[in-house]
């Protein structure tokens, strides 16, 4: 049984206009997305800005209204508005992109981390204090930091406070939306190492949303590539990076800067070649509206949006 199952998810935002401000059209932010995440796995959702990856993450969190489709968490139906609401917010937590704006500057660390605990559990002041100190230790901060304010910490430390808050209720799934994009490389390394560590320690499942393919490659077991609200390809890490099938995936992979300057020329030529192929074969890979086709399985784990043959 998959921990999280998303089936044919659709999220449309209305475009209003005209004199009466009636709905005239939709923006199809997410348009028929399906995927599953197994317990203990890290699933990477990749795409450029506007591809719908964050919207998908928010929908799982319950922060967006869903137009169509189903989300199941441990086989519980999650769609708001359909029958009774199952409260999974305790089991699903989020790590935000920017550690500078996702922590309230006027709250002390103890209040930031204890907030979710106060919402869901009734603890005495003493118990709460101990819990927060344990959490801080878990994320590698000294217990004395509880009475400090966010500005007294560095970027990496702040992101760890964000992580401590996310794991406070012992969630099963953590949605990490660009958790390291705002950080310097060395701090980024610190946070990534640390996320892998707590994943092992707490048997966590990650939905990792990022546009940085280097980071995705480092972190994720399974990857879904999104383009304009649809999946163009999904597969295991190696399938995506060493054997990309869809031209869009190829282009993304080719666009990753190569860290070895000796291969620069070669890499540029390859990228040029892929770009040309992309332009020439765009119509073969996308339908007349410029959207991806539906996914076809090519192996057990690898699915690609290819047109119907013939």
């Amino acid at each position: 049984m998959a921990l999280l199952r998303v089936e044919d998810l659709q999220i449309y935002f209305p475009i209003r206009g005209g004199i009466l401000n009636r709905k005239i059209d939709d923006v199809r932010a997410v348009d028929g997305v399906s995927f599953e995440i197994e317990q203990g796995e890290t699933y990477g959702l990749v795409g450029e800005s506007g591809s719908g990856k964050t919207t998908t993450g928010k929908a799982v969190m319950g922060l967006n209204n869903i137009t169509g489709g189903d989300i199941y968490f441990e086989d519980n139906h999650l769609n708001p508005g359909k029958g009774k609401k199952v409260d999974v917010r305790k089991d699903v937590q989020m790590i935000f992109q920017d550690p500078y704006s996702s922590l309230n500057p006027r709250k002390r660390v103890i209040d930031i981390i204890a907030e979710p605990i106060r919402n869901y559990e009734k603890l005495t002041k003493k118990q709460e204090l101990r819990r927060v100190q344990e959490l801080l230790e878990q994320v590698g901060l000294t217990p004395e930091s509880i009475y400090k304010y966010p500005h007294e910490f560095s970027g990496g430390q702040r992101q760890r406070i964000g992580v401590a808050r996310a794991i406070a209720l012992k969630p099963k799934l953590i949605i990490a939306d660009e958790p390291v994009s705002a950080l310097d490389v060395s701090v980024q390394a610190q946070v990534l190492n640390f996320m892998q560590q707590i994943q092992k320690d707490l048997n966590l499942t990650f939905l990792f949303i990022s546009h940085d393919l280097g980071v995705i490659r480092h972190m994720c077991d399974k990857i879904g590539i999104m383009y304009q609200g649809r999946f163009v390809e999904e597969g295991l890490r190696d399938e995506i990076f060493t054997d990309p099938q869809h031209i869009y995936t190829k282009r993304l992979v080719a666009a990753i800067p190569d860290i070895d300057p000796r291969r620069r020329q070669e890499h540029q030529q390859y990228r040029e070649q892929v770009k040309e192929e992309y332009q020439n074969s765009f119509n073969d890979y996308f339908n007349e509206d410029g959207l991806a086709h539906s996914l076809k399985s090519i192996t057990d784990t690898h699915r690609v949006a290819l047109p119907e043959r013939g």
Partner: protein
Amino acid sequence: MSDTLLLEIKNLKTSFRIGEEYYAAVDNISLDVRHNEVLALVGESGSGKSATAFSIMNLHNRAKIEGQILFNGRDIANLPPSKMNKLRGNEISMIFQDPLTALNPLMECGRQIEEVLILHKSNMSSKQRKAYGIDLLNQVGIPRPERIYDQFPHELSGGMRQRIIIAIAIANKPELLIADEPTTALDVTIQAQILDLIRELKNDLNSGVVLITHDLGVVAEMADRVAVMYAGQIVEIADVETLFIQPLHPYTRSLLSSVPNAEGTDDKLHVIQGIVPSLKHLPREGCRFKDRIPWMDDSVHEEHPELHEVSPGHFVRCTCYQHFHFPEQNEEEQAHGIT
């Protein structure tokens, strides 16, 4: 490649006042850039790379700038505004990091491009200016430039805005282009396009480029030479291949090993211990990187670290590189106990 120096920075020191005292954010750096060359400035935030760029452009407000900035042999450090205005946006121009804040939200994109033309090419008629502006938009790869010309920045995506910034920067065919994190806010495919564009411009105009970034992948793709900055100083400078294949300074080596690389293993990434010291608390004496490699013995550092030329064109600061090794397991735990 011609060998005349386009830009030569000699002992530049840029200090900011905090309270009663001045603190140097850029502390005695010397650099040069030739025509048709990309020099990359690399470092974490707070290392002084942007402060260096702003010093070249003379954009600092109330900073004390000492030393020389020779542009084509002429010292432009502390040039009065009237003279600097003639250079800025004309012979030297800058691509800013954040395309959302660098553009005026109340002005159509086309007019913002025309601004630099009005300032520096006063003999153009308004018709010529518009034609030229549209041509620029074409050059930077903007589709339907006639339409975009009359649009406001908020109507465009991040990648498009960044291209407008680039169009403004190259409008007067600058000899020196300073690109401060030009692709940090962008998606990879657009990043690749923008980098191609900068490279093309460099080749076409024979300009020099100072590329400021913390993304080592971008450096490997773009740079001819690389200067690594830490705490206001250059700690290593070399041509790009040497720097990536045989990095010497502990900071350079640490940075390179903290990047999740293409091999995509589950190995732990290297973490540099501690944090970049803030301007006020910069260690001014001895090796500035010392606190971040606490497992190394104090005796490996120089008392007054200098840049040593280890091979032609390859300079490294301090002697600690000769003995440097990454921490063993027990050393790492010990060091973590301290922090």
